[in-house]
């Protein structure tokens, strides 16, 4: 990125006569770093105040016994007590398991659906402009509103889906009231909501696949599936890895959908880590344990993302 070697633009101004070091002669005086620092400072300050400081507070809280007395936080050293509480908390462990399951299911399903959609829309002609516009709609709606929309379909009392089943003479289902179907419903909602992102990544990457390579493969008599498997998919691999990383992170962050659809229930079957942090902090007022658990989640997330990036770097070598 050292593009300082831009061709010197001739100027009418006389060059400074003072002898300057050869390399610097071309650089005008304004290379002082002042403006660069000034321009970057607000961003760094935002990061320090809203990420580094809160993270430091979370770390401090994780090792403290914190209580609110008279509207003020009281901090007492607690050693590893909070971490012990997390390890002994069955819901905390369950929420990690749920999150892993949720992330794996949503990433895999949305990846396959998004890939199929990208290949499909790429082949469409008449519907292409409409599809490219409408397919991003789900991704821009607020997660809270998305779960509301699906609640209006899945609710046992007012839901459209049960009404449809009833009118068709079929037995109604308690979609969100039963552990496995509740998790399935939550996964379906997430896939509906975020597959557009996968689609966009892969569709954009598809446009970059060399058309003449495809043509050559087809002329050689390769069927459409063979072309997809041996030419298109390898070309899409970098985009697939990128979107998997993005989707894994989104999955770990997920909170809003569950909060409205199931509130983590029934019986903690859909309690994700984010939900549990919120419950610990705001409902149980177990500030220290909430902070310790947050810290654990950050470390686990960083580990998983780091592993994916490491595997990618290894595969690229």
């Amino acid at each position: 990125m050292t593009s300082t070697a831009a061709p010197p633009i001739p100027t009418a101004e006389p060059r400074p006569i003072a002898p300057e070091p050869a390399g610097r002669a071309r650089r005008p005086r304004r290379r002082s770093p002042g403006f660069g620092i000034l321009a970057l400072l607000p961003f760094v300050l935002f990061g320090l105040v809203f990420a580094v400081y809160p993270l430091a507070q979370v770390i401090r809280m994780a090792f403290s016994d914190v209580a609110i007395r008279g509207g003020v936080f009281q901090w007492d050293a607690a050693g590893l007590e909070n971490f012990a509480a997390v390890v002994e908390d069955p819901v905390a462990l369950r929420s990690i398991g749920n999150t892993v399951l949720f992330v794996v299911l949503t990433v895999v399903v949305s990846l396959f659906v998004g890939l199929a959609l990208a290949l499909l829309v790429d082949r469409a002609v008449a519907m292409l402009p409409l599809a490219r516009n409408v397919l991003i709609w789900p991704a821009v709606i607020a997660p809270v509103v998305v779960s509301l929309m699906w609640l209006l379909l899945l609710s046992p009392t007012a839901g459209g889906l049960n009404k449809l089943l009833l009118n068709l003479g079929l037995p109604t289902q308690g979609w969100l009231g039963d552990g496995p179907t509740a998790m399935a419903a939550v996964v379906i909602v997430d896939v509906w909501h975020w597959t557009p992102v996968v689609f966009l990544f892969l569709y954009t990457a598809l446009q970059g696949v060399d058309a003449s390579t495809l043509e050559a493969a087809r002329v050689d008599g390769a069927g459409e599936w063979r072309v997809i498997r041996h030419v298109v998919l390898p070309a899409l691999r970098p985009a697939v890895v990128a979107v998997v990383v993005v989707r894994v992170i989104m999955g770990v962050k997920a909170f809003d959908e569950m909060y409205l659809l199931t509130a983590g229930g029934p019986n903690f079957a859909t309690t994700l880590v984010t939900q549990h942090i919120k419950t610990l902090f705001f409902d149980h007022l177990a500030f220290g344990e909430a902070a310790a658990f947050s810290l654990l989640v950050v470390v686990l997330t960083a580990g998983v993302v780091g592993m994916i990036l490491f595997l990618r770097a290894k595969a690229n070598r």
Partner: protein
Amino acid sequence: MSTTTAAGPDVRRNRFWVEATVVAVLVVAVVPIAWTLLLSFLPNRAIVSSQWQWPFWLGNYERVLRDGVFVAQIANSVAIVVGTVLICLVVGSLAGYAISRLRPPRWIVVPALIIAGFVPLIPPMTLVPGLYVLLAQLGVLGSVWGLILVNAFLQLPFAALLMSSYFSAVPEELREAGLMDGASEWRVFLHVMVPVVRPGLAAVGVFSGIMAWNEFQMGLTLTSGGATAPVTVGIAGLLQPFAVTWGELSAAGTLAAVPIILMAVFANRQIVAGLTSGAVKG
């Protein structure tokens, strides 16, 4: 892109199925949205009835909008969107410009890049205990100001990285020429560079605005609810009581979703740039 290698009845039949499947997919994408829109015009008894009845009714909107709290929440969300977009545009474009064009010293670039790369990885909920303490100390806990700052912080890494890629695409000669003419760095930035990257500013503005409008976790945890909360929290609040008013819920959801969908229709390109911005760093 039409690869008519073996044009024949076979291909034409495939074409039909491709288009038909796309239509089916679009229906799946639209049904939950359309269903909510539909219910928002129905009275509750028609919604919970086991029969299909469609008496057109505007009462849901009337009730939701007559409720001062919901209107206050919409106003809060609008204020949060405006504040977040302004901060993202100013701070994000300055940071993006510095990273791509100014080569500031390492001691400030490295922390900036770590923040830009790390913040999007952390689940915001894990910062909530710390943010709660911070906003209390700043005296903005539970206020729109606090939520503007937190939302801006959450969107800034994306804004800075996207702006940096837009600034990188501007030829260096443009900047050099401005500086040669004797303009200060600040003037060159404002009068030469910023006008060139207007598409980037539009993308950052549209996308960070949508994200701020949609934000829920911070609104839920860093306000005390009611008239201090953003509209997403208000919608969630409508659901809590046991007597669920489905019609009003649909109306509130529609009011929150329709402006955003209209944005998606008319600012499609900017939103696509925002949604795929993860690819920049990936």
